């Protein structure tokens, strides 16, 4: 399978199964519409005849031979022989956990998937006993894995920060006993980010996700305080203070774009201008009936916007400055192995979420959906059948994904979105797919620009 596209004045072809990326001329671009394996020794007359209206015959033959050579090298039209690896993840250890320490929030963001913080289950904070049990669960279920991940999530986790601190202290003791190491991360809306919390987070957490949507008017339209006023002024100030204090530790500012700001490249640029270099701005996921939801009709505008964003980023880099937009990050050479790529997020199998009362779910987005409840850390119950179902949800069990050129970059999409908006974890959610594929094209293009520069 191949996928070719034109972007920013370049013709690019991706060989899906080898991961090969090739920059091609117009002739090759057109020829690829006319040839496929098995390849004849010589360029077929029909192909020469068809293309000779536009290109000289000897060039056509030359180009055909190049395509054939790449095919023989298995970096163009290469075979898909990965399915045999698809089940290697069944029965894998659980090594990542999302800990919902607070089902309460001090903001009332309109688009919040957690129903303004409580996940539909009433406002609640996790107590330390449940937190400890969750750590015990992770220590046990991670079997021989040494490096574990634990994300403090909410609602707003800073509303239960004392418990966060106690959990970290407990986990630091436990990890020694088990000879493991936990990488902590935290996601916050920034409202309660005081200096002592910043210090603690910088000491203990390897990554922080700082939620802000971009321009003040955009942010404040969705991210409101309980009294209806905007959150921008408070959080931008806190984030601007916090990020330099992180030193070389990771952070992201992340925003959500909606139908109200389909010109979101301006929000990315706003965040960049405010001094942030690690930026993620992503589409809202919502029922199509919501006024801010992204619908099919918005896609052309969104595609254009990603192209504009890619151009802007290119320009910034050409000036020798650094910016990282999360969804354009792509490593064409040293990225994850093919096995990881066909498994994706690992939710429900390698990754689980734990609610304030200790219930275990496949991931943070499934929290509160009764039929996906896997067990509880307090009573030790755990449903391995659900784990198994999720382990078997990979690219090769998702009908749309098997046929999709983006499968080894997207890895079958988000199971939660698939369930919520397409009815089943195996069904792809079309709007996400289209956006994902566009982002990938932009990412491959940006990478191609970079690699061309270094090659020359």
């Amino acid at each position, binding site marked *: 399978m191949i996928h070719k596209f034109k972007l920013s004045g370049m013709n690019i072809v991706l060989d899906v*199964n080898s*991961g090969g*990326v*090739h920059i*091609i*001329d117009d*002739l*090759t671009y057109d020829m690829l519409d006319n040839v496929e394996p098995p390849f004849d020794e010589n360029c077929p007359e029909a192909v020469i005849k068809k293309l000779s209206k536009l290109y000289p015959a000897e060039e056509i033959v*030359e*180009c055909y031979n190049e*395509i054939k050579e*790449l095919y023989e090298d*298995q*970096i163009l039209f*290469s075979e898909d022989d990965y399915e045999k690896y698809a089940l*290697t*993840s069944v029965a*894998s250890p659980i090594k*990542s956990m*999302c800990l919902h320490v607070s089902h309460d929030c001090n903001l009332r963001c309109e688009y919040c*998937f957690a129903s303004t913080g409580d996940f539909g289950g009433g406002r609640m904070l996790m107590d330390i006993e449940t937190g400890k049990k969750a750590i015990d669960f992770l220590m046990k279920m991670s079997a021989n*894995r040494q490096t574990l*991940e634990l*994300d403090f999530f909410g609602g707003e986790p800073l509303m239960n920060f004392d418990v966060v601190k106690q959990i970290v202290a407990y986990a630091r003791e436990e990890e020694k006993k088990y000879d493991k190491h936990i990488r902590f991360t935290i*996601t916050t809306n920034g409202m309660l980010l005081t200096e002592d919390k910043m210090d603690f987070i910088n000491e203990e957490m390897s*990554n922080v*996700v700082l939620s802000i949507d971009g321009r003040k008017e955009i942010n404040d339209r969705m991210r409101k305080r309980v009294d209806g006023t905007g959150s921008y002024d408070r959080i931008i100030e806190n984030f601007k203070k916090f990020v330099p204090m992180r030193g070389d530790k990771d952070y992201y500012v*992340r925003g*959500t774009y909606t139908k109200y700001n389909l010109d979101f490249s301006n929000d990315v640029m706003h965040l960049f201008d405010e001094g942030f270099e690690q930026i993620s701005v*992503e589409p809202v*996921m919502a029922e199509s009936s919501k006024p801010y939801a992204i619908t099919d009709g918005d896609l052309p505008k969104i595609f254009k916007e990603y192209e504009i964003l890619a151009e802007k980023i290119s320009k910034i880099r050409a000036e020798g400055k650094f910016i990282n937009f*999360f*969804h354009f990050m*792509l*490593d*064409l*050479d*040293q*990225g*994850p*192995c*093919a*096995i*990881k*790529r066909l498994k*994706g*997020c*690992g*939710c429900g199998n*390698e*990754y689980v979420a734990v609610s304030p009362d200790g219930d275990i779910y496949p*991931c*943070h987005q499934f929290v509160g959906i009764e039929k996906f409840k896997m067990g509880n850390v307090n009573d030790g119950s755990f449903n391995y059948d659900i784990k198994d179902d999720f382990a078997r949800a990979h690219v090769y069990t998702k009908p749309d994904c098997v046929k999709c050129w983006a499968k080894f970059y*997207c*890895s079958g*999409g*988000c199971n939660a979105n698939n369930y919520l908006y397409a009815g089943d974890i195996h069904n792809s959610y079309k709007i996400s797919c289209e956006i994902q594929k566009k982002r990938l094209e932009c*990412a491959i293009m940006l990478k*191609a620009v970079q690699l*061309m520069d270094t090659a020359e």
Partner: protein
Amino acid sequence: MKHIKTINKADLKASAAKGGCGKCQASCQSACKTSCTVANQKCERKA
């Protein structure tokens, strides 16, 4: 080559043979998380 320029190693196949150790970070792609799409992840298998 004159018409085609390959810009990467294209070694996804080789990665499968040696891969799958599961040491790398989980990779949520949804909008509410650090959203490592899988493709931008780091492999953590050492040699």
